[in-house]
């Protein structure tokens, strides 16, 4: 009798095993979904704090100010963008395919006129142009995504985005350009706006330094 009961229990266990496994799997999936839901709700709650972004931007501005040159900080404060002169050989950043990963930068002579420059806007592509002619060369689409937060909707504060581009350009221009997607001017940033900004920059420099402005002298 006992043997028969044991055998029956064994058969029942074997028959129920797939059902139990399925139930356990569903339970686990439900738990994972609940966790994801909780995380999303938390993210929404954080996003809903209107002061948080403002505070983050304020901190970012202070950090930017402490890192860049005084002239660059004033430029960002007054005009909303920063100009950085390119330091590689003239044509290289423009034609990305021609850049070899092993090639070393060739900095221009200290007194040489800058061959090209970049305009750094917050959360917009970096625009390359020729200072002497104001000819637009290309747009470099680059972003600094949150890698740790998986599917995060958050992004760097504006001033942090500018600082990240500034550090990457002044620290390793070649690597940043290699990581960016290059497009012709006008894909994301209105060329008319850029030309206006270049004019504003020239006026700003003229007012700031009078006839000492580099670009004003070259016009």
């Amino acid at each position, binding site marked *: 009798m006992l043997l028969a009961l044991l055998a029956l229990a064994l058969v029942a266990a074997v028959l129920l095993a797939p059902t139990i496994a399925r139930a356990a799997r569903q339970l686990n999936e439900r738990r994972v979904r609940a966790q994801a839901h909780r995380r999303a709700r938390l993210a929404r709650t954080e996003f809903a704090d209107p002061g948080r972004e403002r505070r983050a931007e304020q901190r970012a501005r202070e950090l930017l100010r402490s890192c860049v040159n005084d002239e660059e900080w004033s430029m960002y404060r007054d005009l909303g963008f920063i100009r950085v002169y390119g330091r590689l050989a003239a044509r290289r950043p423009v034609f990305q395919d021609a850049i070899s990963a092993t090639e070393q930068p060739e900095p221009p002579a200290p007194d040489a006129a800058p061959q090209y420059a970049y305009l750094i806007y917050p959360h917009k592509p970096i625009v390359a142009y020729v200072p002497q002619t104001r000819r637009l060369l290309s747009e470099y689409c680059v972003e600094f995504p949150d890698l740790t937060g998986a599917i995060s909707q958050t992004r*760097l504060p504006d001033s942090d985005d500018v600082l990240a581009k500034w550090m990457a350009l002044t620290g390793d221009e070649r690597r940043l350009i290699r990581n960016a997607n290059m497009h012709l001017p006008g894909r994301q940033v209105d060329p008319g706006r850029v030309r206006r900004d270049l004019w504003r920059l020239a006026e700003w420099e003229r007012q700031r330094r009078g006839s000492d402005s580099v670009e004003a002298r070259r016009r």
Partner: protein
Amino acid sequence: MKPGHGEVVLTEGDPAVREDEERLVAEFRHQLDEGMWAAVPTTQAASGRRQAQMVRDYADIPADAERVIFFPRAAGG
């Protein structure tokens, strides 16, 4: 720099103190393992111009650096 938050102090200490240095090295490696880029703001001695120096190894950090800034690595937008 942390998306959505801005500047966050990760750790601080005196590299000359062994315990501090170990903590700094551990945090540096952790950030790079997370895929961040590291940069040190510097000033050119000759011109006084400020620029950044990208660092890929703790040993690359200039001795007089006051801070290392980590930011998400660039990706094509």
